[in-house]
């Protein structure tokens, strides 16, 4: 019954990558926005003074596929700013079944609400598309939040953007066919990855969409027959991005616009003041 063995065999890195030698290091200059810290849109949108409260305390880690960055119902210890890749926020049911409720890439942050005080995560954050992230301890991030209104505002805006994504997903699940949702999901994943190739198994896709693998196989084949994607074992190539956008529901465009507005609006305001 391979359908029921969800997410077994996953390596948890999360906290452990902080202590891994050679991976985590702090940039030398505190105010300088080092090359290493670039990639995350929220960090890039911060004014230098606010950025200086965070960047010196950042550490860096690769995001390995399947790694769990935060676990549901446990305290958030690190705040992650993805620089590439995509992380799914999944709800874990008592049966062990997991379903994605939102996805976060370099336009967002994971665990930011812990900046307002100790916080237990509501969802499990699991890496779907590998990449890299900058992270800061929740305690350090709380200090930055206390010192800067702008960073506090950023936390609240991100929470609102996430809520908006979850609302859109709820409506999408209630109205749109799975084929359109699959197309939408692939586009999200593509935004977080470097090229046009997604290292994804159909099992992973099935878990994320909360569907049977048999179903996802047929849907992926229909997208392939339409010349939009090409799939092999554990890898999907997007051949026709514009076509995939046509096949996706409107929710892809809505979520992307709103998420990007958080960063852009923020940037505009920071520059104005």
């Amino acid at each position, binding site marked *: *019954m*391979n*359908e029921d063995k969800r997410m077994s065999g996953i390596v948890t890195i999360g906290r452990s990558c902080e202590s891994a030698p050679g991976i985590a290091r702090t940039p030398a200059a505190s105010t300088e926005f080092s090359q290493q810290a670039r990639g995350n849109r929220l960090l890039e949108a911060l004014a230098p003074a606010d950025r200086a409260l965070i960047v010196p305390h950042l550490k860096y880690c690769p995001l390995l596929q399947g790694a769990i960055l935060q676990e549901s119902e446990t305290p958030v210890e690190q705040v992650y700013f993805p620089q590439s890749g995509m992380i799914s926020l999944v709800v874990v049911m008592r049966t062990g079944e997991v379903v994605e409720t939102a996805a976060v890439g370099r336009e967002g942050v994971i665990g930011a609400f812990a900046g307002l005080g100790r916080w237990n995560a509501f969802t499990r954050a699991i890496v779907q598309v590998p990449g890299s992230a900058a992270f800061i301890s929740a305690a350090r991030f709380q200090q930055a939040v206390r010192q800067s209104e702008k960073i506090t505002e950023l936390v609240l805006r991100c929470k609102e953007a996430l809520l908006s994504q979850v609302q859109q997903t709820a409506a999408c699940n209630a*109205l*749109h*066919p*799975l084929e359109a949702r699959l197309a939408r999901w692939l586009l999200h994943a593509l935004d977080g990855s470097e090229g046009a190739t997604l290292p994804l198994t159909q099992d992973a896709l099935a878990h994320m969409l909360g*569907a*049977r*693998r*048999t*179903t996802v*196989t*047929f*849907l992926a*084949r*229909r997208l*392939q*027959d*339409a*010349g939009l994607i090409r799939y092999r074992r554990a890898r999907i190539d997007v051949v026709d991005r514009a076509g995939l956008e046509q096949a996706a529901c409107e929710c892809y465009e809505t979520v992307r616009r709103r998420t990007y507005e958080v960063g852009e609006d923020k940037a505009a305001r920071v520059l104005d003041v």
Partner: protein
Amino acid sequence: MPLYYFHLHDSKGLSSDPDGTMLADDVAARAHARRVAQELMQHRELKTRHWKLQVCDMAGEVVFETLFASVDHTLDQLDPELRASLEQLSRSIGGLVVAISDCRMTIMQSHALLARAEGKPYLATVDGRRI
């Protein structure tokens, strides 16, 4: 545990299941087919009601078929007689669609054959299926 193959007959013809799924018995296979059909047809019931899943065992023998209309939740309110006739209609449409797609394929094969005989380029696949 036996392996079951779930082949899909949609509006474009047959789409075979390459991997199969391990399931306890025929009862579990029926439940799986029902779920898969419902996931494929969700929110587009009208367009997919005539699709069906053909479930085969490891020997390739057909164990049973699941017509999408027969597991369509949106028809649950109908009275049984009306529902039965709607399912029958969907079955006929499915048969018709298969016949039309077979005809179309035969025509394309003839075109390809003629072109090949004349040494001209010809359409080799359509919708990812070989002619």
